[in-house]
């Protein structure tokens, strides 16, 4: 009984020492707490994948009422911004080379003649495809715009000839669920919690035990009655508090300032975050024990924790779009379960009845990594 109490005391002592280490370095502390704010600010205000106001050049070789009517359509759409008219292809090429425009609409000289003679009238669209995402969305808009204009022309002609009216046969009723304004912010901010926790937890802790190795203080720890699991838990406790604070900041600011919907239970978000955070912290400590040098520990942390959380979790880049092998790889990283879970709770309002598997896997992960880290340290310390 008293042995266990003494164990707890030793753990608390390590935790206190680590907390002092954090507090003595106010700049790192401030940065650790400001990081979620900075990321939220970036994703809340500055970063979006939404495509509108596509910079567009016009090359009108026809210069008739008909060609101007078509160009008016582009000018009137909120998706396109007309930069001006050019006189030849060379100019288009130059402006695209310098990243000044993404689209050029070319109306050939015989456009209105063909149109009036009911022949095939051609319009050319030239896209800068470098940014394929923007280009394919722009292509969709331009296509829809010209298609509906073509349908209108056709109907006008028909109505003139047949004297009757035909209504458009089918209209598409589009409804968007979960994120009805299609704001990229709403799907990025929930995932951001996972990314921030990974930076704080795995990257910061990965340096702590490696630092003891580099400085040689691990020898001093060896000579104390401290056991491996006490060292791990103590080291973890201080960073756990830091991570939790970050998580609360991210959730609070995201919901209150940026109006990201939280449709599910905040308690579930908190509980899942705690389990995820513990697993991430143990992982950082495990790396630290393996690497022994801070630079190496950092690099390992980067590749095994931050990058997967950022790239292989569905945070910004959808997992369904990845090659099958990479999709399989995403299953071994806990951030995948955490971030898809968070998006479900925030946007869809689902609860444990849908997410029990994710939650369970995160708990199992944390337990397994704890055992690994303790064993690694016992091996090294002994």
């Amino acid at each position, binding site marked *: 009984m008293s042995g266990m109490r003494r164990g707890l005391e030793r753990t608390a002592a390590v935790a206190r020492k680590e907390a002092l280490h954090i507090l003595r370095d106010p700049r790192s502390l401030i940065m650790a707490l400001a990081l979620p704010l900075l990321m939220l600010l970036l994703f809340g205000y*500055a970063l979006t994948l939404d495509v509108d106001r596509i910079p567009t050049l016009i090359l009108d070789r026809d210069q008739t009422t008909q060609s101007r009517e078509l160009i008016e359509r582009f000018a009137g759409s909120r998706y396109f911004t007309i930069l001006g008219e050019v006189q030849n292809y060379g100019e288009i090429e130059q402006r695209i080379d310098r990243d000044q425009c993404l689209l050029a609409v070319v109306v050939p000289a015989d456009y209105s003649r063909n149109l009036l003679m009911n022949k095939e009238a051609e319009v050319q669209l030239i896209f800068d495809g470098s940014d*394929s*995402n923007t280009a394919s969305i722009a292509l969709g808009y331009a296509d829809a715009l010209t298609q509906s204009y073509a349908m209108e022309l056709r109907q006008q002609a028909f109505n003139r000839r047949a004297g009757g009216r035909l209504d458009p*046969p*089918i209209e598409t009723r589009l409804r968007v669920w*979960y994120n009805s304004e299609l704001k990229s912010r*709403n799907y990025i901010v929930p995932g951001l919690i996972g990314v921030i926790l990974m930076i704080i937890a795995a990257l910061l802790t990965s340096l702590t035990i490696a630092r003891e190795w580099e400085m040689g203080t691990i020898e001093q720890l060896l000579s104390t009655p401290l056991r491996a699991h006490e060292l791990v838990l103590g080291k973890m406790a201080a960073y756990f508090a830091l991570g939790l604070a970050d998580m609360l900041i991210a959730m609070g600011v995201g919901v209150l300032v940026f109006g990201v919907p939280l449709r599910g239970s905040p308690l579930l978000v908190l509980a899942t975050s705690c389990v995820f955070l513990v697993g991430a912290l143990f992982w950082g400590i495990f790396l630290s024990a393996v690497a022994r040098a801070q630079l190496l520990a950092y690099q390992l942390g980067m590749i095994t924790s931050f990058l997967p959380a950022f790239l292989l979790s569905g945070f910004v880049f959808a997992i369904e*779009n990845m090659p099958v092998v990479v999709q399989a790889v995403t299953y071994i990283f806990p951030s995948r379960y955490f971030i898809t879970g968070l998006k479900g709770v925030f946007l869809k309002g689902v609860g444990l009845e849908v997410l029990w598997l994710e939650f369970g896997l995160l708990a199992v992960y944390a337990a397994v990594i704890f055992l690994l880290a303790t064993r690694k340290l016992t091996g090294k310390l002994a």
Partner: protein
Amino acid sequence: MWRRIREIVRKEFRQALREPRMRAVLFGPPLIQLIIFGFAVNLDVQDSKIAWMDRDRTPASRELYEAFEGSPNFRVAAMPASAVEARELMDQGTVQAVVEVLPGFGRDIRRATTTSVQILVDGTNSNTASVVASYASRIVSSYANRVLAEQQQARLVGRTGAAGGPVNLDAPRLVVKSRVWFNEDLLSRNYFVPGVVVNIIALITLMLTAMAIVREKEIGTMEQLMVTPIRPLELIAGKTLPFAAVGMIDVVLITSAALLIFGVPFRGSFLLLLGCAALFLMTTLGVGLFISTISRTQQQAMMSSFFFFMPAFMLSGFAFPIRNMPEPVQYLTRLNPVRYFMEIVRGVFLKGVGTEALWPQMAALFLIGVTVLGLSVLRFHKRLD
């Protein structure tokens, strides 16, 4: 003086390359990062799973189904019988969208009155959702165009009397010919992989410089160096040149790997790329050096580097177009060296442009590089005195 710099450079190299684990740190992670990034960063939407909910079951609805099934963009993954079932599929994320054909669809088309198709899209990932919505609308509207033509034909046949036979409707036809330059197949990999090269180079040189110099302070060997006759400037040159060399080797390594693994096009001049990389390294080494002067521990150095790198990476136009940012932020990105190098690398890879188009970016990098490196050297100098 040159001899002393050479000696430090040699010592640094030996120190960096002596340990196999260290060698791995310099060249392994960049390659792994390239592979993870290259495969994961992808905004292409293809083969989206949709649920097909046909409450009409007529030849007309069947035809629309075939239009969806035949499109390379969609795969019908489920046929829910009820709204509850459809909701479950959406909640679990099994399908991206539900297309619902209401009863009376076929009848309305026969009678030539307007009918509708309901499309429910999962908006969780707003980018995927907009692409899916636009693909689905295009399929429906091209089907609608076909139906309209048939209806017009039928009307005209009815009007011109019992003569029968096909009547050609002369109507204006507008055809759009789209041409895509530089990335004909619209593969996002061609856009992102060159960008990944930039990020990896930035991250590795920045972190290496900052952490390695602080490490010497942390374990106390910096003081030993200071009691030798080495002058501060020589020390700085000796400390940063090896990282510059590592950075250049990484540029070559990662660019070749990107071309081999991902098959992205490389249309410009490799020499130009190397030259611009040298300009860019001035800025990252400068920032790394600066961070080393304000950090006591490697943990601090890492946090500070991260604090610089994260916004620089996000505001570089790598994935999020600068054009979409609010105007004040757009001005801010003009101070961001990563932005300029990103534009250069993409221009050289995809567009094959040369100095005639890239000189503004090169000039900006040079200016930023000289300023940052100069300031850091001054600060480092003062610290040592």
